[in-house]
């Protein structure tokens, strides 16, 4: 699965670099939205086939909040570690880490304060999204199902959800969606807060 994903992704990047005319770029947003909506609809159909999912989730209870909380705290610790490695302003580093795969939003908020940090934020979260796509099959197979949500972070509710569903199970897919929603909401709050604290 991972090899196929890398091949398809590489083919897409090469097509974007060398083949596709400029006009295609504007249409890709709509195509991704339509594809995503179709996927979510089919994920819903998949979920509807298993009547025990919500019964099982009920038994998990409030613990469902633990996964997004661990993902967010983990990202922030990573941000602090990177600020030490690269001798960056700690709040700038935390702002980058708070993007949690949502590269469009974090870069847009950070760039007016520092274009360099904005560019790092953009690429960091692009890389993190690609890294999630590539690593989710490996993580699901060798580490554990819930950990795939830690890799996907904000994309666990949309573009990463089909990948997580494909490699885990329906219970984890529901936790993934809810975690992705919570993490995405956290991005909209945390990035502006840390940007406001940059020296």
């Amino acid at each position, binding site marked *: 699965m991972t090899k196929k994903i890398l091949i398809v992704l590489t083919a*897409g990047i090469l*097509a*974007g670099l060398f083949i596709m005319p400029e006009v295609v*770029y504007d249409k890709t947003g709509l195509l991704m939205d339509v594809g995503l909506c179709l996927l979510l609809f089919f994920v819903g159909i998949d979920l509807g*086939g298993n009547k025990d999912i919500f019964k099982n989730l009920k038994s998990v209870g409030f613990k469902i909040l633990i996964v997004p909380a661990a993902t967010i*705290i983990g990202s922030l610790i990573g941000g602090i570690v990177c600020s030490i490695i690269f001798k960056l302003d700690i709040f700038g580093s935390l702002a980058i880490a708070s993007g949690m795969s949502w590269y469009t939003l974090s870069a847009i908020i950070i760039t007016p304060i520092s274009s360099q940090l904005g560019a790092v934020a953009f690429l960091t979260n692009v890389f993190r999204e690609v*890294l999630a796509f590539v690593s989710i099959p490996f993580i699901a197979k060798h580490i554990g199902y819930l950990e795939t949500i830690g890799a996907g972070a904000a994309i666990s509710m*949309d573009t990463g959800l089909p990948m997580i569903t494909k490699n885990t199970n329906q219970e984890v897919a529901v936790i993934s969606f809810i975690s992705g929603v919570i993490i995405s909401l956290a991005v909209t709050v945390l990035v502006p807060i840390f940007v406001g604290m940059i020296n």
Partner: protein
Amino acid sequence: MALRIVMYFGLLAVGWLLRSKGLINEKLTGKISHIQTVILFGLIFIMGVRLGMDEQVVSSIGQIGVMAAAFAIVTSGFSILLVYLSRKRFFKGEGFTGGKND
């Protein structure tokens, strides 16, 4: 953002309701996994096209790529580590572990 979240929930709910009420043709339900794979690869290809066509991404990769790659690996790694530790502490069962490290 709020509208998108509502739409995503709505699509999941409509699909779930249709299937749970038995309104989806059995032939279609048998092909769902295949359809999902095809759409998924389509989405990944389009994402690649977007990355390849985005001048901001292409032009800045050489300049700050190493720093961004390190940020991506470290933040993702710590998130996975904390979810792993939380799962070991709070979640039991093969449904969450995938049969590993239970």
